[in-house]
């Protein structure tokens, strides 16, 4: 048993719903107890879909369990076919129906419907939402392309499929539009976009493309692997999120298509110039913690470091299936990846790393809010505000613009931050004041262990920079085992007051570095001089 307060992913049948809801003409009959229909509101409320997901539930109750739940399922399949007349149907069981072992696939096959009926077995006690989406999409693709021979594409103009966008996907709607437009600029035809907006018949046309562009490996990886094996299609696995990644993506696809991209393509994004412009100097080295699905976490790590100039202090994912690439990415930044779907563990890791910015999911938004750290949502699970009315892609060159804004907006503006550093006890600029453009109510909570109020004085910006960014190992930060009462140095009152001039979000780190410095040299108590000695030491 796993104790769970909040979960990053739903059960696997939610993934299947995301595929069915994304497509046209596909209906999902789900053997599930009363109550499982709550899933409809994810689509109608969070994504504001204007129609019900194409899902019929058996909604069995206890009184049905003694009777014939199998007949209930057969009736639901027949009724769904008669009412909705889908091109194809997927059938399966949710967690409770899995236990009663009614065999939805066998029952549905026995009805002899004149359409493909595809059983998807999604082990609800082992797997989760993204796996369920990938498996469902794969089963649909397999059935739709069954019996086809690999086509002869040599004589055909180069074209690609875009695979992976789903219903309830984080910015999928807008990513697809931007990538399709980019491909059009390159003169590359798009064969099929799936599952979002595709019909079952469209899936049968997938093998005609020369290559599959796997926009989201979490949902399309399995199907793309199958298409590569079965039909000899190439897989484009560079996810075009971020300026550099989009450039790499263009290079990869141009290589495959044997074309030369039009010159100046990358300059269509403002990210490069905005980041080089002097106002962005203040972004340098800001400590950022990134957590999300693997695709977005890895992509954002590159954007945050190489394209904005932040310093990465945490990188992780809840997708255990994609632990390996996230570990490899983290290693390349000299940190250890956090692979966990335990919300409390993620919160502890963020608190220990003391970032100045969190890029995460809706869960991390809540964590950051509690810790008083600015945050931007960059990955599912998402909430209603993550489906904006405006075109707001993460992928492609316009996506890079959106990313610049997304990553910068939660922070103080450059001059504002400098003034805050100089006039720490200004009645408007202070520890608990939020960025001025985020409104008067967006105050940050005070440091939990706050003692005496800080005395007047203007210092500390530079002090904070050095002490807080000094190389404390992550293990030390997350497990302060040495901080027992006996060995912890004592802080003199004036030193404690000086420390309080450091911005709250890096104060803990500065404290820890100063204590390490003092302990290594046997300095006790810590004085103002100790703080500045430590600063000099860690600057060196």
């Amino acid at each position, binding site marked *: *048993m796993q104790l*769970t307060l909040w979960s990053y992913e*739903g059960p696997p049948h939610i993934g299947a719903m995301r595929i069915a809801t994304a497509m046209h003409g596909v209906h999902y009959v789900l053997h599930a107890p009363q109550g499982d229909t709550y899933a409809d509101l994810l689509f109608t409320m969070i994504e504001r879909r204007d129609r*019900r997901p194409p899902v019929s539930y058996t*909604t069995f109750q206890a009184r049905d369990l003694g009777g014939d739940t199998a007949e209930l399922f057969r009736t639901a399949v027949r009724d769904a076919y008669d*009412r909705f007349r889908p091109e194809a149907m997927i059938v399966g069981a949710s967690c409770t129906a899995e*236990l009663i072992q009614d065999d939805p696939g066998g029952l549905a096959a026995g009805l002899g419907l004149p359409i493909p009926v595809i059983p998807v077995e999604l082990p609800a006690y082992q797997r989760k939402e993204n796996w369920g989406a990938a498996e469902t999409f794969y089963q649909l693709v397999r059935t739709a392309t069954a019996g086809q021979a690999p086509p002869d594409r040599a004589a055909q103009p180069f074209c690609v499929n875009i695979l992976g966008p789903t219903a309830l996907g984080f910015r999928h709607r807008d990513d697809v539009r931007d990538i399709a437009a980019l491909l059009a600029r390159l003169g590359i035809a798009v064969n099929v976009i799936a599952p979002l907006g595709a019909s079952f018949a469209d899936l049968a046309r997938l093998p005609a493309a020369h290559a599959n562009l796997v926009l989201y490996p979490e949902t399309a990886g399995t199907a793309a692997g199958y298409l590569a094996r079965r039909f000899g299609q190439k897989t484009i696995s560079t996810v075009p999120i971020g300026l550099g990644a989009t450039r790499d993506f263009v290079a990869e696809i141009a290589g495959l298509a044997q074309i030369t991209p039009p010159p100046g393509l990358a300059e269509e994004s403002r990210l490069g110039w905005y980041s080089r412009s002097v106002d962005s100097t203040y972004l340098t080295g800001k400590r950022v913690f990134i957590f999300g699905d693997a695709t977005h976490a890895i992509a954002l790590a590159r954007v945050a470091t190489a394209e904005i100039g932040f310093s990465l202090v945490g990188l992780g994912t809840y997708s255990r299936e994609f632990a390996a690439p996230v570990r490899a990415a983290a290693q390349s930044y000299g940190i250890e990846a956090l692979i966990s779907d335990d919300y409390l563990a993620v919160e502890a890791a963020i608190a220990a790393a003391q970032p100045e910015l969190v890029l995460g999911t809706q869960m991390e938004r809540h964590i950051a809010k509690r810790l008083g750290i600015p945050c931007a949502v960059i990955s599912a699970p998402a*909430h209603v505000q993550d489906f904006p009315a405006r075109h707001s892609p993460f992928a492609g060159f316009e996506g890079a613009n959106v990313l610049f804004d997304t990553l910068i907006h939660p922070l103080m503006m450059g001059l504002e931050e400098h003034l805050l550093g100089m006039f720490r006890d200004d009645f408007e600029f202070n520890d608990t004041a939020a960025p001025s453009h985020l409104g008067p109510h967006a105050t940050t909570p005070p440091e939990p262990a706050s003692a005496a109020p800080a005395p007047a004085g203007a210092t500390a910006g530079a002090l904070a920079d050095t002490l807080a960014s000094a190389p404390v190992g992550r293990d030390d930060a997350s497990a302060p085992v040495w901080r027992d009462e006996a060995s912890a140095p004592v802080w003199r009152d004036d030193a404690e007051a000086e420390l309080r001039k450091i911005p709250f979000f890096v104060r803990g780190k500065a404290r820890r570095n100063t204590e390490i410095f003092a302990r290594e040299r046997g300095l006790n108590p810590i004085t103002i001089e100790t703080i500045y000695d430590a600063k000099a030491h860690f600057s060196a």
Partner: protein
Amino acid sequence: MSACTTSPAAPPAIIAERGQREVFCGLTGIVWLHRRIQDAFFLVVGSRTCAHLLQSAAGVMIFAEPRFATAIIEERDLAGRADLDDELDRVATRLIARRPDIRLLFLVGSCPSEVIRLDLGRAAARLEERFGRSPRVLAYSGSGIGTTFTEGEDACLSALVPTLAPAPGPATRLLVVGALADVVEDQFRRLFAALGIATVDFLPARRADAMPPVGPFTRYVLAQPFLGETATALERRGAVQIAAPCPLGAEGTRLWFESIAAAFGIDPAHVDGVLSLPVRRATAALAAPRARLAGRRVFLFPDSQLEIPLARFLARECGMILTEVGTPFLNRRLMAPDLALLPADAQLAEGQDVARQLDRCRAARPDLVVCGLGLANPLEAEGFATKWSIELVFSPIQGFEQAADLAALFARPLARRALLEV
């Protein structure tokens, strides 16, 4: 019986359906119960679906560390590689160690825990002994196979009843049953005091150690209409019911107080004196929303079992025309006072086949549809004004001072449509 069952309405013809039910399961009740009982923790023993429902159903992710969680059953538990009792004990012990402030732990059964016949009652007894009765540990089921939405509260409260202390006699005491907003409880307490009812308890109380006593000296009245099991459990303890319509609207609340006052033998003239001011105020406040609602046609999908009292309020106090009044279940005994006040031609529907009910709704072309979150936007896209029914469970709607607020909840979608030019 109360004075309000005298209306000689013919029983309405009922549509009874058994098809797909677009309703929440009883686990959803945790969302408001954990706010009501402020030192209780609700541990669902279930699947990832249960956990996902709880965080999706009401957008409740606002709490630093919520007082509910899910012990997710995994493959190794089902395959017998882990002992389920040991696993549950481990999870509950870890939980209580984290939250020593918790005074009452509910183990909440789910569809999977019921299908695998995990005995949570026995587990609760075992854990309570292990914890030395601090916290108390109780079990109930909020499973979808056993409970529909508000029946979760019924199951929770009926699990509490056997643990209540015996009420001392011989003075008669009043027990108001059903989770109410604090503001409503406080208003009710003031009115009971003015009426001269000395001892009034509320179930559930706001704290686990302040749960009310119950016994043969208890007269109980339901503040929520969906508490059938709790009513039975109270009667088993000797408590006697005061039948009354639901305290929704000015009329409904007046009848509710009058029924209670009659049971306590209070002089009707005194009752009139106490109630006349709040009745007048509520009636006056209802005028504005009533102007928007009167003559409009409303269709209610089954959801919380509040539908029949709401329909009674909308028809009698807001002048609306009822097209169909759906309810997940119809408990004729508990609902009798409200049923008696419904227009004789009201079309009731018990149970659901959602696709067929949507067909009937489209055919009826109502001006307002009361429905769940899964149906609201699709119906809006088809051109119907909708009121999300979950708001009726999460808002203070009972009592005189909330009567106009309740009507305004229904008037707002219509006002908004009149306002927008998009």
